């Protein structure tokens, strides 16, 4: 095997796969996209001059691949948007929860679904900052942003998640209360 591929696989494969998975929430698509990341990386590896860290460079490519994917998928995304029921603030048809997440406690599954309500930018920041545990500086470098943009995006994303989580929880509570009253 190619030594560059070998090295990158060893060091970063799981991080990159994870990032892409949480961006697209679909295992097959993530598998395809991660291959696309390698193709772009291997094509431009000679041009990588070590000015940024290898890790953030790889993430910046992964980000571009993910963005491209969303670009191509806009028809599909729009379909999902149409399914969104504006009166109840609920997405009717959500992407299925993978096994790994279904095994976790309930809140994890909920927040996984709430991620859909963030913009692409916000989701990228959330995934990089909390799931990949990149620092603000690393996230900024990978996204080609300033640190302050990362901070404000992160802040807005948490606000979106907070609101969503609270709405879901509140609804569940009223639902369970109803059941109790009916009894």
């Amino acid at each position, binding site marked *: 095997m190619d030594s560059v*591929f070998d090295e990158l*696989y060893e060091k970063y494969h799981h991080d990159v796969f994870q990032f892409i998975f949480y961006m697209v929430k679909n295992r097959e698509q993530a598998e395809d996209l991660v291959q696309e990341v390698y193709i772009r990386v291997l094509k431009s590896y000679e041009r990588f001059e070590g000015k940024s860290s290898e890790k953030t460079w790889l993430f910046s490519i992964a980000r571009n691949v993910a*963005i*491209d994917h969303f670009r191509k998928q806009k028809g599909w995304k729009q379909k999902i948007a149409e399914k969104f029921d504006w009166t109840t603030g609920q997405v009717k048809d959500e992407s299925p929860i993978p096994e790994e997440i279904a095994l976790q406690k309930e809140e994890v599954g909920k*927040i996984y679904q709430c991620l859909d309500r963030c913009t692409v930018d916000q989701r990228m920041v959330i995934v990089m900052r909390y799931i990949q545990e990149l620092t603000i500086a690393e996230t900024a470098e990978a996204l080609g942003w300033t640190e302050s*943009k990362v901070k404000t995006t992160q802040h807005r994303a948490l606000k979106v998640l*907070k609101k969503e989580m609270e709405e879901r*929880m509140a609804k569940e509570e009223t639902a369970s209360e109803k059941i109790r009253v009916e009894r």
Partner: protein
Amino acid sequence: MKRSEWNDKQLEELLSNMPKIQDHRDPRDIYQNITIKMSKKKQRSWVVPSVATAAAILLFVILVPNVMNWNESTSNSMEERSTASDSAEQPEMAKMTENSEDSAGGKEEAKIFTDKKNDENMQMTSIEEEETYTALYKEDLTDGNVFTYAIPDTQGQNIVPISIVVPKEDGKELFEQYKEIMTSLKEEEWGLSEFYPLKAELSISNESVLNVSVPTDHPYMYGVPGQEAFTETLRELAKTLGLNEVDLFTEEKKGIEFELYGNLPTLDLSNDSNHAYYFHYPEKKPKQLYLVPYSQPYKSIEEAFNAMKENISLGLSASIPQDINIEEIKSAGEDILNLKFDDDSKIANEPSFIHTIEAILLTAKDFDFEKVIIQYNKLDKIGKFNMNEEIEVPVAPNKMEILN
């Protein structure tokens, strides 16, 4: 347990507890998939053109003698015929022998032939004066208006501003001309992605407000570059037409929904400047150079010039070489920027340096300078730019022509 209240800390904790998702495939399988994909991509890029070239040569070889014969039968003079056929065939013959010598290396003749042709083309363009300058300058603009359209690149990473000069037409409104040009832009031919005409109705009300109406299923809701190009183009249009408000509608309803910006009822027209220009070579047309502003603004022009020595992720490459040292950046007058290339800077009178000067001028323009003086002791001129004298900043970036 009642937990309808959430704070940031709890959310952060929950997020970092998200399970690690593993890719269960064998790395060897992944590597194999990649190599298959990469070789497919490569194959596609040369098989078709070389087969086509081979077929073209074959046709040529068959047809040329026939055409000559036909000439022969119509012409009466024997002598005339032989000179005509000689002069037509000889250069071709010379080329063929050249090629067959090369193909002794075992490569396909057709491929070498195409490569050769490409090389020739490349030399041609680097010699041609006109092609060297990417931007539009005052002297190019005898009597016309300029429209700048924002077009996304094919990788969805950058927005390329493309400027078109349109001759002034009497009795025709600028706005009408703008809409007309929008339908004849050749994005794909330019190596960019298909974007125009906008799927929106544009109209002007009260002579100062641009109204933009999109259908409910408008294509600008998702996709980062699409959203950016859409809003950027409208901002640019408002500027060109001297309008001071852009109102957005979805059919009759006020506001357009964007994934990036949320629901926007109007566009912010406040001056969005201080960008640096980088080199961008489209993936689909790698020989075409565009000078493209990076979306992130810089605090000062010094910072911008420093940043321009570095590549930006994918798609934007450094527009100032590492070994050009810019010192003494100061504003000479209010609108004049004065800078100096260090004597150790390695600069020659070549196209690539002309492009560097263009990038510097366009960046200066974005920082609201009108003229730039570049002090450099070792050269009087780089292309048409005089060193140590005032140079006017370009009118607009990336001039393109639409030939109908």
